């Protein structure tokens, strides 16, 4: 079946204006136009979004899980890096 050759794409959807695009999932498509249309049909059919980004999965560089120790563990005990000592006004949302 020809669809076996369709590359994989990652789909990012902005659910409403003011929010950032978030990763929603992935799908197969022959090119960017088809990826957008497929994303519209697969991920926004229940009114989930106002904007879609698609990017071919091969363009994403991922960190290696084997390096998780050296990459992430050093941050675990550095509580002073969290800005938890400020009072946030109620008007500031989505923090």
């Amino acid at each position, binding site marked *: 079946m*020809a*669809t076996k050759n369709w590359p994989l794409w990652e789909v990012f959807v902005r659910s409403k204006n003011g929010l950032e695009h978030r990763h929603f999932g992935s799908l197969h498509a*022959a090119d960017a*136009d*088809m990826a957008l249309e*497929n994303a519209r*049909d*697969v991920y926004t*059919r229940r009114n989930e979004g106002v904007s879609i980004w698609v990017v071919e999965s091969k363009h994403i560089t991922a960190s290696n899980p084997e390096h998780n120790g050296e990459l992430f563990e050093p941050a675990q005990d550095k509580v002073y890096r969290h800005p938890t000592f400020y009072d946030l006004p109620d008007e500031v949302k989505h923090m």
Partner: protein
Amino acid sequence: MKENLYKYILGIADNSLILGQRMGALTGHGPSLETDIACTNISLDLFGQVRNYYQYAAKIARDGRTEDDIAFLRKEREYYNVLLVEQPNTDFAFTIGRQFLFDVYHLLFLTELQKSNDLTLSAIATKSIKEVSYHQRFSSDWIKRLGDGTEESHQKMQTAIDDLWTYTDELFHQTVADKAMVQEGIGVDVTKLKKDYYIKVNEILEEATLKIPETNYFQKGGKKGIHTEHLGYLLSDLQYMQRTYPNMEW
């Protein structure tokens, strides 16, 4: 009862019902997960439109029938859809070809129906037009992909267009009810859509490197209730539950 208006509404709605049923039959059988959902979405859009039309028709009929009775309990010859929409899902090229040849008509038709004196019909047209614009975009894109794709996809797409072409002319035929509704400023004069229709269709076919079929022989009959053999089978699927368990509900 306003006989002409009633029949006119059915003529519009039946196209969407039958095409919706054809597309719905692909649920779980599409060529890929993504196109499967796309076909199902189109089907659901069409069924949504159909409900608006049949609810209005039921109001006009005033004989106690509901939208469901109108959808499920008519006989084959009481459906007034064009022959094009009842043609089977022979393969994906036929599915796309049928959708495309109908979408171009449907969009032109709804654009005009928005100007109808009948406020209900013009409101339904306005509501449906965005959905149908997307249908046309989807089907046109696939016509181009398959037509201008591989040798095999080109051949299959050309075969589908050649076979379905004979059903396009009927879109522009007028029934007695159509003519009466045009007179009253309610209906769309479909004869005036024909030129724009073939301009748009030909433009996409050329872009898809497909040949525009040359024929002077066209099939007709659906608008008068005379159908191809395919409709009976489709209706027996569509109506099975209501016929076997009358008045059943989910």
